């Protein structure tokens, strides 16, 4: 970055803020985060940029990326855009692992049909950037964003959106350094010193397995069904284990069978003094659920809330033979998704009502 490209970036950011400032956030923490990003930007704007050194420019390049990225996710996280119901489930899952006040789960909507991903740095990298901001501008940003990408067209597809639990698992992995500790245990050195293909592969696979198991705690094997659809028969790559192996690992966890990797993960979690992997869902019997009567399921607790997705999947997978068989394919799709959405929102509304009455 030189002074002219700095100016270009600054102007582009000005344009982005100009567009984003009309966003309405129902969540006051998102509003506050946006306001803080803007305050920081205003501080940067009044600096004497012509005197910036190479190091100043490099630091600001990082800060600009942080601001651009924050705006990108905030823009798609208004109540009108974000998959609100599923995000409320993710927030509950998050609170099982990390104090939630510090974090805001935000989403960015992609035009690519399979684009589910987590985007972010671990706490250490994040702290480095915050230190730069603190040192230069004596300014602290209160919240951190947990950034998840998902396909725009699937934003109300509660069957496929179970994958978001997997993406949240990647955040937890990075934040708690689970894969990094697994790597350290296996190779006897920090993961940042990984050089060989085998080392890289081990680290990447450990992260995917952990994210799968993290998700399975809440949604049982729901994401395996989706995985088997988008990555059927995929063999292991440098970044991902074979689909078959991933599905098997989830099954072993759900069945509480012994498995060396799962045991090692539990050991690492225990040593870190955080939660252990556990089955955090309460299975709903499709036969006795509200769905069979075309009404939302009366969710009784948070564990059942997470299980609604599995109920949706079971209902969909058997829709040629169950109560849905009388409906057209597209109607079935809408019925299942609508019933999942309303089951979740009814629970949320009743809970918040009870707290405030």
């Amino acid at each position: 970055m030189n002074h002219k490209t700095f100016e270009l970036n600054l102007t582009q950011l000005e344009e982005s803020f100009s567009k984003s400032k009309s966003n309405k956030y129902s969540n006051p923490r998102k509003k506050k985060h946006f306001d803080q990003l803007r305050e920081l930007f205003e501080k940067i704007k009044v600096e004497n940029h012509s005197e910036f050194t190479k190091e100043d420019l490099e630091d600001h390049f990082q800060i600009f990326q942080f601001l651009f990225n924050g705006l990108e996710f905030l823009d798609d996280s208004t109540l009108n855009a974000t998959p609100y119901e599923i995000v409320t489930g993710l927030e509950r899952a998050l609170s099982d692992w990390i104090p939630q006040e510090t974090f805001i789960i935000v989403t960015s909507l992609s035009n690519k049909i399979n684009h589910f991903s987590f985007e972010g740095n671990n706490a250490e990298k994040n702290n480095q950037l915050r230190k730069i901001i603190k040192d230069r501008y004596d300014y602290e940003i209160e919240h951190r964003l947990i950034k998840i990408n998902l396909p725009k067209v699937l934003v109300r597809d509660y069957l496929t959106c179970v994958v978001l639990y997997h993406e949240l698992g990647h955040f937890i992995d990075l934040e708690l350094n689970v894969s990094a500790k697994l790597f350290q245990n296996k190779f006897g050195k920090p993961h940042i010193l990984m050089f060989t293909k085998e080392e890289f592969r081990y680290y990447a696979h450990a992260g995917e397995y952990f994210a799968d198991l993290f998700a399975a705690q809440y949604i049982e094997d729901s994401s395996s069904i989706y995985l088997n659809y988008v990555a059927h028969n995929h063999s292991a790559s440098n970044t991902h284990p074979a689909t078959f192996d991933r599905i098997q690992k989830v099954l072993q966890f759900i069945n509480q069978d012994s498995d060396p990797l799962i045991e090692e993960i539990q050991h690492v979690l225990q040593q870190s003094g955080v939660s252990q992997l556990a089955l955090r869902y309460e299975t709903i019997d499709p036969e006795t659920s509200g769905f069979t009567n075309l009404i939302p399921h009366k969710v009784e607790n948070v564990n059942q809330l997470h299980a609604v997705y599995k109920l949706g999947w079971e209902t969909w997978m058997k829709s040629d033979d169950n109560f849905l068989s009388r409906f057209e394919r597209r109607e079935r799709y809408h019925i299942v998704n609508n019933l999942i959405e309303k089951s979740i929102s009814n629970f949320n509304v009743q809970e918040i009502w009870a707290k405030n009455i």
Partner: protein
Amino acid sequence: MDHKGLLTKGDLKTLIESGDLVIEPLLQDSQIGEISIDLRIGTDFLTSQLGRDPYLDTSMDGEQKPPLKSFFNETRRNIGESFLFHPSQVVLFSTLEYIKLPKNVIAILSTRSSYSRLGLSTSTIIQPGYCGCISVEVNYSGNTPIKVVTGARLVQARFYRLEGETEYFNGPRKYICQVRPIASKANEDKDLAVLDRIARDNFE
């Protein structure tokens, strides 16, 4: 033997307790009145908007025509947040409550008098066996925008028991288990194809 006609508080409670009438969530028992049940304005809205097309076309749905929903903008609120009704703007909202009616009970919706007096009105009939949140279309005849809190009791439903049972899903249904307001599908009525043929083939 169950009586016919307008259902009273006791009848309504009995139906709800037996699960024959579903209203979820029913946040307060006091929503059940002597001859009606108050329903709450939900969190999802469709509001009419001006677009590039000059008019709403309810004739037969064709490839070349924009869907009616393209004249509406979808917006959400959290419960407790407010929504503005503007004069002359068509607004559809979903009730907060998901309803399932027995096969022999019809429901008639109207605005609660507190809101009618402000100029907000609606008229909706819910057929026996219907299931879903109710899409309520509101006509606002006042001349000053009105702020309404989502979750407020805006409409009331009166329930009438019929002589016999009906089967809601006997025929094709355009609105099933909806949980957000759905724009009109008037141009998807099957008989429009017949009317289209009549216009094309008989008067040339």
